[in-house]
Structure formats: structure tokens, C-alpha cells
């Protein structure tokens, strides 16, 4: 039914491309490394698509329920009986969907990069890293074991590190890469401990067993898990919260988001792939993966997910309005959209219509991948053209790059939630779920959607309209077919993905259900979106000083938003002042002076004693004789009087 070989090939092909290009790329395959990488991915994408088709439409559904199919399972490392890391492939709706998303976007990026990265010195290295990333990401989504997901989680992190730091001679890129890695690593600490907690309680690391054991209220595992463990919370809650922290780190949720904007130092296609469409949604995927446990056994943890997501969505949206670096705007937008997905999960219930939020979240994940990748690739084309990331350096580009312009516009409309583009459908579902579940979150979401429309169109107008672009020097147009083809394909996705009947395919419990679109309900968000677009149009379509006026009238708020609410500074303070100065330096000092000093003191003091006592050896025979006599008599006294006393 599901060929182990073909399934395994999906991740292994990119890995193969990584190994080939990484080991021999610079010498042997110098000229066709891009082709190799893209070819591998093409095959992989083909396989994923056929798998998806097979799963969704041929054999995945049994009795109307999409099954979880463990297609492959190899015991990789056994800790104790039952608790082992297995490397396996788990097929269920979300993993199959993710397979498609990852391979598709990755393929687009591979193709796009053929043009974008042409002439780079480390071209094959770049493709190698892309291959590595794709492999890791595929491994992540197919994981059948919570530890497997952690493994690929880390690998994804490191590929992200490598790709952000691709321009390694740029100090800012290096710094950004490190930051991304360390911040996510910090979050992964939570994930790791979460795994330890969950696995200890459930005595398994296998997802299926884990979920089954921790959702069955009568199981003994459950009893131990829900007993209060620490600070009044049960160990289950702790485990889930810690796992969520891991997810929040990868998905750039507040307050672990600080790495994401900086990560834009990487090549733009990388941003599209990793920091927009795939890796950053891993957190959402993770929560989705464990969703039954969250929803059934521990609603409290789910609340946390909801509020974190909602806050992050709004927070990022506000910052996005003030940024001037085109990629940073997109980065904050990404964060905001992931916030949407998160809280959508947070407001969801389990099973049937209750699981609307879950479905919506996954839906949004899917559509967001399309339009956000499109946005990034478009931005990449612009940057490629302008040689700058700054919005101020752009303007009026619509004439110079028409295809980019159109596709970018489609993406903007999609993200703004204008019907009938993809974003509209997924966002409506989310808002609906939020509305049913939590009005506060619904409100935040509504406001955010307005702001989203505003900053996206701010971006759009500034780039493609506004002041006229004066080309100085040479420009090489929009890039060749290889760069335009992905844009076009993705824009098709952004335009029409909304029509996919997601609730038929991806649901919380695998059972399809019907969703209805309430037109009345859609009015408010659409109107808000249009308002945002209109304001942006008013401000930025032509050059004027309205925006400055507004921003100066809100100067305090604007400034803090512009400075990303000083979160970075807080982190800097904590890391440098607190950790370095209060932990690192004292530790180093303690080591040098106390521990080492003690050992050295031991040596020097014995030499000192030796020096002090040297007068015992005075060279005077008579003194020697005196000691001799004293020794003899003294020993006599000791042995006659002292030692016989007892």
C-alpha cells in the first residue's frame, strides 16, 4: 500500500543530495550541483504528491476515518524496554499535508535559487544545505516518535543556522545565525525536558502509544501523569507546557521570537523556505501532533497556547507596521500569522466540529506556506533587482518587474484575507473558531487582521508604487524563467488553495466534517481588511508625509514598536549582564582563584614550610645530637606514659 522504499526516499533523496554536494560538490559537481539538488527534490516532491494522493484519496481512509499509519519503524536506540527512540514514518493527515507543503515549497525554492544564487562561490554548499534542511524537515514531519521529532528538530535548527550564516564573512549574518540557534536551543531545552516528563509518565516515546496512553483517563499512566507534581501543576501539564515552549521557540512565539527577524540575514530563498513556510511552523505542527493530549487531557496547557499565539499575532503585527526592512516586515508578518495558527489550535476542541480550530490552523498553515513563500520569493526578486533590503530605496517597481508585481499583489491580497484568495478561507475558519470559543481572542484576531492588511499593503505600495525608481547602474531585470516560474506556481497556490476542502481531509480526529461559510460573519474581517488596505493606499501609494505625521503623533509607541519593544535589549541585558557577568565570570574567577589557587597553594605552601623549617638542619652536629637525645627521651616518655594510659 505504502511502499516503505518510496516513502523513505522522500527524505533520503534530499539527504543524498546533501551528502553528494557536501562531500564532493566543490570539486566534482561544481557546475551542476543546482541541477542535482533540484532534481532530487523534484523526485521527492513527486513521491510526496503521489503519497498524498494515495493517502487522501485511495487508501488512507478506513471507515470514513483517516488512519494513522506507521509505515516504517526501526529501533534506533533502546533506553529501556518499551522506551526507545525509533526512527519511523508516521502517516496521518497532517504529516502527509506537511510532506506536500515542504517538498513543494522546497522545490520552488530550489528552482528559484538556480537563478537567485547563480554565480555564488559556494553555490553547491548552498544546495547541500538546502538538501540537508529539506531532509531534516521531512524527517520531522514524518516522525513516529517524539524523540525522533526532537532529533530532526535539532537538525532543522542546525540547517537553519548554516543557511542563515551562509554569508559567513558578514558579521551580522554570523551573529544572526548564532542567535537563531541559541534562542531555539534554549526553547529546545524545554522541549527536551518535556519529552523526559512525558516519556517518564507514559513509558513510551512512540507517538501513537503516547497519545493513546495519555488520553485515556482510566489508564494508570494517566493517573500518575495528572497527579500534582511541582508547583501545584501536574506533570502532564508541565510536560506539555515544556514541549510547547520548544514549539514556541521554533515558531518564534513571544517572547522567543527575537531570532526570527535577524534570521533574515540569510539568503532570501532560504527565508522563504525556512523562516516563512516550513521550519517556523514546526511548532504548530508539534502542538498539532500532540493535540489530542492537549485537548483531551490538559486544556490548561491549551489555553496557554491560545494566549501566546494571540498575543504574538498582535504584537508582531504592530511591529511589522513600523519596520522599513522589507524582509523584516515579512518576518514579523510570519510571526503574526503563526500566532494565528497557534491560537487557532488553542481555541480548538477535539473531534468533529469542535475541532474546527485545529482544522483551520492546519488550513492556514497550508495557505500561509503558499503566500508567504510567494511574498518572500517576490521580495527576493525585488532585492535582487534593487540590491537593497530597505523599503526607502524602492518604489515604483511595478513597471520594471511586472510579473513580480502581480504575484506579490496576489500574495498580499491573500494574506489580507480578501476573498476569494486562499488566506480568506483559512482566516475565516480561524476567526470562526475563535469567535465560538473565546471572544477576547477573537477581538485580538480581528484587530490583527486589519493591521495585517495595512502593513502588507504598506509594503506593497512602497515597493511598487510611490516614488519613481531611478535605476542606477546595471539591472538584470526580473531574473530568468527559473525565478519567475516558482512565483507563478506559488501565486496559483495562493490564489486557489482556499478552495481545497480541508475539513474533509485534515481534522483533529481524522473524521471529515462539513464546514459552512457564514457570509455574515465574514463581513467584519473583510471590511477591516479593506480598511487597512485603504489606509495603506492613502499613505503610501504616492509620496506624502501622512505616515510621518501619524508616527510622530504616536511617537512614544511608534518608537518602541520600531525598536521591537526593546525585547532584544532585554535579552542582551539578561545574557550579557546576568549570565556572562553573574555566572560566567564568577565561574571562571572561582576556577582560577579558588579551585586552582587551592591546588597551587598546596604546592607553594609545602615549599614554604620546607623553607621555614630548613633551620632544623643547621649544620651543627651538637644540635643534631640534641635532637637525637630529645627524640629518644621524648619517645620514651610517649611510650611509657602516654600510650600506656589507655
Amino acid at each position, binding site marked *: 500500500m505504502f511502499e516503505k522504499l518510496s516513502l523513505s526516499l522522500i527524505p533520503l533523496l534530499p539527504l543524498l543530495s546533501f551528502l553528494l554536494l557536501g562531500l564532493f560538490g566543490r570539486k566534482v559537481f561544481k557546475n551542476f550541483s543546482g541541477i542535482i539538488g533540484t532534481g532530487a527534490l523534484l523526485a521527492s516532491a513527486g513521491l510526496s504528491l503521489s503519497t498524498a494522493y494515495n493517502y487522501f484519496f485511495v487508501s488512507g481512509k478506513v471507515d470514513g476515518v483517516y488512519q494513522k499509519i506507521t509505515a516504517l519503524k526501526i529501533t534506533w536506540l533502546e533506553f529501556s524496554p518499551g522506551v526507545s527512540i525509533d526512527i519511523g514514518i508516521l502517516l496521518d493527515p497532517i504529516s502527509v499535508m506537511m510532506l506536500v507543503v515542504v517538498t513543494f515549497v522546497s522545490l520552488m525554492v530550489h528552482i528559484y535559487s538556480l537563478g537567485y544564487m547563480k554565480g555564488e562561490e559556494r553555490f553547491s554548499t548552498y544546495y547541500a544545505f538546502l538538501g540537508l534542511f529539506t531532509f531534516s524537515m521531512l524527517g520531522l514531519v514524518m516522525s513516529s516518535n517524539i524523540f525522533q521529532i526532537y532529533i530532526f528538530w535539532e537538525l532543522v535548527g542546525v540547517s537553519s543556522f548554516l543557511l542563515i550564516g551562509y554569508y559567513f564573512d558578514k558579521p551580522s549574518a554570523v551573529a544572526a545565525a548564532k542567535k537563531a540557534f541559541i534562542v531555539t536551543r534554549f526553547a529546545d531545552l524545554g522541549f527536551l525536558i518535556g519529552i523526559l516528563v512525558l516519556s517518564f509518565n507514559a513509558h513510551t516515546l512512540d507517538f501513537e502509544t503516547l497519545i493513546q496512553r495519555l488520553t485515556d483517563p482510566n489508564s494508570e499512566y494517566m493517573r500518575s501523569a495528572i497527579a500534582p507534581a511541582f508547583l501545584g501543576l501536574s506533570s502532564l501539564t508541565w510536560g506539555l507546557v515544556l514541549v510547547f515552549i520548544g514549539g514556541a521557540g521554533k515558531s518564534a512565539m513571544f517572547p522567543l521570537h527575537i531570532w526570527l527577524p535577524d534570521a533574515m540575514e540569510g539568503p532570501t530563498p532560504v527565508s522563504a523556505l525556512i523562516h516563512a513556510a516550513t521550519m517556523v511552523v514546526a511548532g504548530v505542527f508539534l502542538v498539532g501532533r500532540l493535540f489530542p493530549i492537549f485537548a483531551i487531557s490538559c486544556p490548561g496547557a491549551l489555553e496557554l497556547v491560545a494566549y501566546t499565539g494571540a498575543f504574538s499575532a498582535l504584537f508582531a503585527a504592530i511591529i511589522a507596521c513600523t519596520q522599513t526592512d522589507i524582509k523584516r516586515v515579512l518576518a514579523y508578518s510570519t510571526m503574526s500569522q503563526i500566532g494565528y495558527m497557534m491560537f487557532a489550535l488553542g481555541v480548538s476542541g477535539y473531534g468533529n466540529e469542535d475541532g474546527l480550530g485545529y482544522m483551520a490552523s492546519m488550513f492556514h498553515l497550508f495557505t500561509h506556506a503558499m503566500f508567504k513563500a510567494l511574498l518572500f520569493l517576490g521580495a527576493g526578486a525585488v532585492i535582487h533587482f534593487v540590491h537593497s533590503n530597505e523599503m526607502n530605496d524602492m518604489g515604483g517597481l511595478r513597471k520594471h518587474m511586472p510579473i513580480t508585481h502581480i504575484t506579490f499583489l496576489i500574495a498580499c491580497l491573500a494574506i489580507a484575507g480578501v476573498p476569494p484568495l486562499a488566506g480568506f478561507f483559512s482566516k475565516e475558519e480561524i476567526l470562526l473558531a475563535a469567535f465560538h470559543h473565546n471572544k477576547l481572542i477573537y477581538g485580538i484576531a480581528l484587530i490583527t487582521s486589519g493591521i495585517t492588511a495595512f502593513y502588507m499593503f504598506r509594503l506593497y505600495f512602497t515597493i511598487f508604487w510611490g516614488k519613481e525608481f531611478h535605476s542606477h547602474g546595471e539591472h538584470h531585470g526580473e531574473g530568468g524563467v527559473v525565478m519567475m516560474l516558482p512565483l507563478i506556481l506559488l501565486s496559483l497556490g495562493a490564489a486557489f488553495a482556499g478552495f481545497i476542502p480541508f475539513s474533509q481531509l485534515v481534522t483533529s480526529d481524522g473524521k471529515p466534517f462539513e464546514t459552512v461559510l457564514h457570509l455574515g460573519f465574514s463581513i467584519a474581517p473583510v471590511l477591516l481588511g479593506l480598511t487597512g488596505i485603504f489606509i495603506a493606499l492613502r499613505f503610501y501609494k504616492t509620496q506624502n508625509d501622512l505616515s510621518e505625521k501619524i508616527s510622530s503623533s504616536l511617537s512614544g509607541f511608534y518608537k518602541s514598536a520600531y525598536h521591537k519593544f526593546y525585547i532584544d535589549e532585554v535579552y542582551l541585558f539578561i545574557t550579557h549582564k546576568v549570565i556572562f557577568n553573574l555566572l560566567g565570570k564568577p565561574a571562571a574567577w572561582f576556577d582560577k582563584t579558588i579551585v586552582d589557587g587551592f591546588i597551587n597553594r598546596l604546592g607553594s605552601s609545602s615549599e614554604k614550610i620546607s623553607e621555614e623549617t*630548613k*633551620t632544623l*638542619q*643547621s*649544620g*651543627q*652536629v*651538637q644540635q643534631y*645530637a*640534641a635532637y637525637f*637525645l630529645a627524640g629518644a627521651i621524648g619517645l620514651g616518655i610517649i611510650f611509657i606514659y602516654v600510650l600506656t594510659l589507655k
Partner: protein
Amino acid sequence: MTGIGLSHILVVSIALFFIGVYGFLTRRNMIMMLMSIELILNSVNLNFIAFNKYLWANKMDGLFFTIFIIAIAAAEAAVAIAIIINLYRSHKSIDVEDASDLKF
């Protein structure tokens, strides 16, 4: 017959012993130190003889010990004096406190 017993002689010998020790510890002249050694040895001899006489007259161990001690004392004194004379040649002194190049 007589009121003088072993202990009297032992007192004498111990006193002599410590007189010798005192001389050895305080006199700076090496020859004087040597003389003090002779006193020490004599006190030991006296011990042996006294023990032999008063306690263990059935064997003559103490007596022979004394004889051999006397012989060895002579040999020791001879070698010591030779060394002292040699030292005197190089140091131009027989003050024991002067002979302390070797120390610490």
C-alpha cells in the same frame, strides 16, 4: 655485708652518662666532644660491670661486653682523632661550630 647496692652504682653511671652527654652537647672543641664520648662509654661499661656483678654473675656477658667496648672505644677514638686532625688541616680550627658548611 655492705649497704652499697646495684642502684648506687647505677646512679653513678647514669650521672656519668649525662655528664658526658652534657659535654658532648655543649663543648665546642671537637677533642672535648670526643672526651665526652669516652665518658658516655665508660658509664655504659660501668653499667655492664655492675649488672654482671650484682645480677648475672653466672655468665660473663657483661664483662666481655665491657672489654669489647673498651677496644672499640679505642678504635673509634683513633679514627675520630685522625679525622679531627685532617679537619684541622683544612679548616685551621677544631671548633665544631666552624665546621658547618654543610647545612639546610
